[in-house]
């Protein structure tokens, strides 16, 4: 039963991972750009939610939408001011640029908010629901449900709207997309901003169950790489599944081995997938 509990905890965390990784997968799929600042944007989202709660009493469970919108605008600005300039250049420069942006965000947060650990305490986080032999922390469940809803609506948006089709079109073929009347530059900006918004909203959802400090993003950065690789780079559905897989793997590692080795297992898994199945667990095409 305890193992089942570990799996359940993994699934609950995995839902939030899925939301984080989906943003990265979207950016990679459309722009072929690995956003090394993804975790840093998540951290920004957490701080935004934190100050929203402490200053304006905005509950992160509905404030995550506001945080997502704010991060969307931030992402748009970062795209037009910085990222746009390296599109079409080598991976080398693109990665260094996003790494530089990440350092600016983390360093900026250190300057503004110091390195202190901060957290909020929602009354919800102390409640536990029991169902048979299993225990649910209510805050985890609410975050999970919202994350799953966000992932699903994003998936539907990609599948059925005109904008979603345009985004998928650019992801499929950057060269042909403009011939179909799609403004590639504009779509790239939207996708980047969407990715950043996903990270920010996920940050807001993590806040009730976690603490925040300026460097909190970097493990999530690496985790979303792992997930995106697991799901096949650039596949949004794959990222959702990959998130759940990573969450469950971590839950089981913590249960059978030790909490401190969860990240080691993450990275070993990551290297193994990259080397043995570079197209991801569900992908068909080699990268």
């Amino acid at each position: 039963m305890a193992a089942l509990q570990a799996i359940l905890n993994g699934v609950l965390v995995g839902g939030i991972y899925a939301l984080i990784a989906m943003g990265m997968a979207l950016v990679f799929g459309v722009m072929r750009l690995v956003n090394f600042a993804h975790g840093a944007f998540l951290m920004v989202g957490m701080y935004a939610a934190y100050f929203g709660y402490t200053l304006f009493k905005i509950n992160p469970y509905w404030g995550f939408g506001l945080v997502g919108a704010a991060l969307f605008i931030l992402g748009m600005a970062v795209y037009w001011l910085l990222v746009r300039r390296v599109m079409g250049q080598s991976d080398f420069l693109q990665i260094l640029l996003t790494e530089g942006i990440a350092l600016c965000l983390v360093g900026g947060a250190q300057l503004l908010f110091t390195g202190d650990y901060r957290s909020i305490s929602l009354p919800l986080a102390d409640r536990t629901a029991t169902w048979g032999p299993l225990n649910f922390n209510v805050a985890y469940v609410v975050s999970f449900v919202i994350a799953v809803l966000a992932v699903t609506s994003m998936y539907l948006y990609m599948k059925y709207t005109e904008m979603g089709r345009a985004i998928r079109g650019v992801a499929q073929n950057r060269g042909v997309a403009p011939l179909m009347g799609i403004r590639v530059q504009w779509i790239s900006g939207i996708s980047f901003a969407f990715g950043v918004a996903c990270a920010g909203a996920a940050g807001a959802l993590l806040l009730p169950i976690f603490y925040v400090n300026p460097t909190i993003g970097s493990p999530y950065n690496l985790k979303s790489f792992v997930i995106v690789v697991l799901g096949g780079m650039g596949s949004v559905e794959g990222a959702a599944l990959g998130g759940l897989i990573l969450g469950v793997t971590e839950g089981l590692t913590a249960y059978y081995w030790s909490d401190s080795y969860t990240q080691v297992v993450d990275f070993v898994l990551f290297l193994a997938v990259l080397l043995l199945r570079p197209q991801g667990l569900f992908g068909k095409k080699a990268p």
Partner: protein
Amino acid sequence: MSRSGLVSSAIFFGLLLSLPLWLKDAYLQQIVFRIVIFAILGMAWNLVGGYAGQLSLGHVAYFGIGAYSVALFHEAFDWNPWLGTLAGVVLACLAALLIGSLTFRLRGPYFVLSTIAAAEILRLLALNLSFTHGAIGMIAPGFFEEPNGDRKTYYAALPLLGVAFALTAWTHRSRFGYYLRAIRENEDTAMAVGINPAVEKLKALLFSAALVAAAGALYAGVFQFIGPDSVLAIDLSVQMALIAMLGGAATVWGPIVGAVVLTVAAEGLKAYLERAHLFFYGLLLVVVVLFLPGGLVSIVKQRWFRRTAARAQAA
């Protein structure tokens, strides 16, 4: 190396050798020592990241292996730091063989991510294993007894800088260096003309890892206290890349220029803003990528070419 190159490197090393004689201020000496270490790291990274164009953001792994070897072998077998350094270099080369043969199969972002993953695995192991004492860190033995231990360590670092410099200068002009640059420009074309990218990249990484490990051992011997967050932090990997890129990737003098500028600027900034260094590095990285992808050395080079071209036109 050209004649002017030989002369300038002779002057450069002459200055460094005589430095403790005319620079008496202990604080400034410490800054120069840090510049030397960073220049070694930048040059080592430059072989893989600059010449071969493989953006490794996991070089801190080799630094950590060097540093931890000094401390671990001292604690376990009471080895002196020189023996520890040697062991560290050998271990780092073995690690480079393993990491390189795995990660060099990947390209672009996949390669970058895998180097980070490899370095992070080492950091997490150092953080969680019992014999590395986790986050508490380890005490490392110093290389020299007092008095004048710092000065002796400085003179121990200079030959390492010399080796790194000579290796870079050789790479710059040798067939090996051209192979690396061919791989950087287009790996498939390089293969088509008979270069074996896997072997050449691995060679570059071995040289690089050995230098970085030796620098890590030196760091451990000087600061005598190491931990996962000081010698295995991902920030240090980024810093190595930044040093080389800021000065000029795939140039002989670039990493040295980068190390001087970065260290002096960071030190100058420290007086004003205690916690600003990460922000500053990030800003610098963004500026270099967007406006100065050739590094500081490229400005000088451009001006030099323009002048010689103007002179040729006049004549």
